[in-house]
């Protein structure tokens, strides 16, 4: 079957200048397990667009690197 790639506006935005390579706080706390580390940069990113905009990732980030926006379809 043919697959295509779509661009998606994702809710969780990570400020890579602030994100700590050794920290996984946001990844561990996400109920939907949608965050991961980019293996090349060590920075967190939203790997799967499956967000409940519930905010633990943002609240538990020790350096304030995360901003959660309401998913586009809802906002």
């Amino acid at each position, binding site marked *: *079957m043919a697959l295509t790639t779509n661009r*998606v506006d994702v809710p969780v935005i990570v400020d890579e200048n602030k994100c700590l390579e050794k920290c996984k706080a946001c990844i561990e706390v996400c109920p939907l397990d949608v965050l991961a580390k980019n293996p090349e940069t060590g920075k967190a990113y939203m790997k799967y667009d499956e967000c409940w905009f519930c905010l633990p990732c943002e609240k538990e980030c020790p350096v304030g690197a995360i901003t959660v926006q309401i998913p586009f379809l809802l906002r």
Partner: protein
Amino acid sequence: MGIKILNTLIVSVNTKIPDISVHLEYNMGNKNNKNFMEIINLEVDFLVVGGGTAGCMAAVKAKQKSPESSVLVLEKANIRRSGAIAMGMDGVNTAVIPGNSTPEQYVREITIANDGILDQSAVHTTGLLGFEVIQELEEWGVKFQKDNEGKYDLKQVHRVGKYVLPMPEGKDLKKILSRQVKRNKIKIINRVMATSVLTQNGRAIGITGLDVRSGDMYVIKSKAILLCTGACGRLGLPASGYLYGTYENPTNAGDGYSMAYQAGAKLSNIECFQINPLIKDYNGPACAYVASPFGAYTANASGNRFISCDYWSGQMMLEVWRELNSGQGPVHLKMYHLDESTISEIERILFDNERPSRERFHAGRGENYRKDGVEMNISEIGLCSGHSASGVQVDEHMRTSIPGLYAAGDMANVPHNYMIGAFVSGRVAAEHAMSYIQDVDHGQVDLDIINTEKERILAPLKNPNGIPHTQVEYKLRRYVNDYLQPPKSPKNMMIGLEKFIDYQNVMDELGARDPHELMRCMEINFIRDCAEMAAKASLYRTESRWGLYHYRLDFPNRNDEEWMCNTIIKKCFEKNEMTISKEELKPYLFDVNLNAEKYDVSVA
């Protein structure tokens, strides 16, 4: 919210993101010499599946009752922030506090609110033990609202009686619960999703699970198992079209409903859907319970009241539906008539608790409670006994119809049980289970069954170019909206039922590329089972009951003569099909005259 960065993610084009070759290594079962889908065998005395409200309480109570027993909490997410109350809760809805109400009064109220269909003994248990739960939570650091004299500041939201107790500082409730689980040295396994209940000679003996990060398979033997995996919150498709923009935490995909069904347990009254009046698009609660004691109310487009009682009964939902369809819509939660200090106080509670992102939702639209109503709409359907009354059939000890298998929380059919009911049911289940396990040994796991289950879990991985789970799920849930959203029509539901059964063939087309996607694929199996049950049960009960939850256009009236009973869904293994039948209600503990006391909430 001031930030408006358009963050875009280009999947599999950006080389920084693991690409398909990595996924194919999963597919081949080998990455860095590690075998994926390794089988990890464990053995415990008591297994709690789901570390939410009911599960955390159950684990603590089990360990307290039997400290020498091994207790394991298996959690799909991380118990620190998981389940329906991941971000806290702003109050409890079923607090029976001595001096304010009695368990008997509470049972009467729920009997009327649920149109007579209930096992009163299970609801009575919630009334009897709820106060102890509240006291214990206070010892753990949870704060409930008190008045100037230090008494519980209960609010009336139900038709009769005060059962709503605010928790304006309830935002860390889940952290407090998980701390208690750790303090009691209970073993926790996060990020493993249960996929099936194992049985032997009709008894529950364990579960299988998938590690949603490594792809390993767990086979956990346990003398007793408690399923408390929450609601089926991903049944209908939200009007926004966003799969995860649900009222319930979208991790709760009906896992326990499906696993209990597939194991042969009875489920009851699945036609009694969960439908909520929610903030339009955002799909979170408008929180009339929080705001109405301050003077807010649900109003129509003219700003007038049309319901007298904000309690979420099926009757209330029907009144909202009628108003929306009367030319008087949209409806909204009205606060703009209140003074500044009152609105600030309401905001402080609502923006801190349960669904805190509502603040940025409103801000993004330039909405302000001082001038704007909170536009509301009727949600898509779900299954959740915490709010309505559909779930796995349980008795007052939370036993299912399978020995050794218990159910608690939103998935156990104790009507209108809410959070206090989840705590109580978790506790009751654990205490009974710890007695039960004294007399039983571990069962024998059938390796053929394990291998078959492994194949089933892994199947989408063998088809990495198959249809992505997002599309398969979207279409299934759109069918749920198309054919099951009340009011219900018989032919619609028949088409729906047929489509849900046929959808088993669509599942074969699912493709996955990593363990995370395998989790989502398995969840679609859970959702499909729930959809089939919802159609089957809704067709079977040929009357209308519970207001909008089961409003049939072809049978618009309640028919107590024929339908004052449970409907029971059960799997027939011989024919491999779903069966449904009537079952008598258990005798009432307290007589209630249902004809004299109707849950009529419309403003006369």
